[in-house]
């Protein structure tokens, strides 16, 4: 709930892996969060821009707390935010989230099955709750 205070915008950086179901889930969750659940409090940054050293993307992640969503244990999103000078307020791994929501088994790549869509929604909801928690902290999650 908005209490009238200005909330710190949170940067969302999902996995950019193509051809992997869990990467797709990470991006779907990010879109749900940024477009539907928290459009005014989040900003999506494409991981590929950080990989390419895009100055604007680096400036955004270095000036806001980030939440990363990794599709596999390589954790590229988390590593690239850190290497770009950003602070990771919370990192999510899709596999860990799936372990909490086993009923939502994700399948598909270009298009997720129903389980994958539900898992992405559950992940987006979890991140929104985490954002509420971070933003209730005195430093708005920018505690690095």
């Amino acid at each position, binding site marked *: 709930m908005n209490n009238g205070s200005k909330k710190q915008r949170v940067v969302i950086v999902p996995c950019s892996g193509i051809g*992997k*179901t*869990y990467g797709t889930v990470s991006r779907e969750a990010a879109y749900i969060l940024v477009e539907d659940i928290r459009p005014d409090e989040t900003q999506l940054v494409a991981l590929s821009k950080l990989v390419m050293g895009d100055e604007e993307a680096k400036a955004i992640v270095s000036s806001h707390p980030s939440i990363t969503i990794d599709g*596999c*244990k390589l954790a590229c999103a988390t590593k690239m935010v850190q290497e770009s000078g950003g602070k990771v307020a919370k990192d999510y791994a899709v*596999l860990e989230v*799936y*372990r909490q929501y*086993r009923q939502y088994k994700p399948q598909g790549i270009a298009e997720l099955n129903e389980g994958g869509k539900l898992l992405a929604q559950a992940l987006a909801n979890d991140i929104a709750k985490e954002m509420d928690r971070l933003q209730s902290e005195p430093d708005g999650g920018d505690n690095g």
Partner: protein
Amino acid sequence: MAEMLRFNIDKFTFQVATDRWYSNEGVWAKWEGMHVVIGLSDYVQQRSGDVAFVELKPAGSLLNQGEEVAVIETIKVNISLPSPVSGRVVSLNPEIEKAPELINQDPYGTGWLAMISVPDFPIQAQHLLDAQTYYEKIKREAEQETRNNE
């Protein structure tokens, strides 16, 4: 720590611990006196991907060699694992249900699956592959697959 046989394919390094036996399906069996500890080979765990869930036959179960002892769900596939030995399940890895990623992180150590009571392992081992044979088998398979994909 067990000695390892290793080979590289592309960016991957596969390891085979030399102090145990292997089924064709890549389930290892390590003889420890009256008991045999079983687990998944490094080759199978790497090819199958990150493990999400593990379901093991409960302690007390009687198994025949080849009967399902575990089902592993990874990010890619569901695998039914046949027991490499006949015997009674004595105990299960207490950590594995809460932390199935141990299978990926340490397949020959903390990622073990179950301990099975096997009084006649030397006889049963005749149906298993020694480490060198298993190593040659999977190396051949991996190299063939690489050639097929070229």
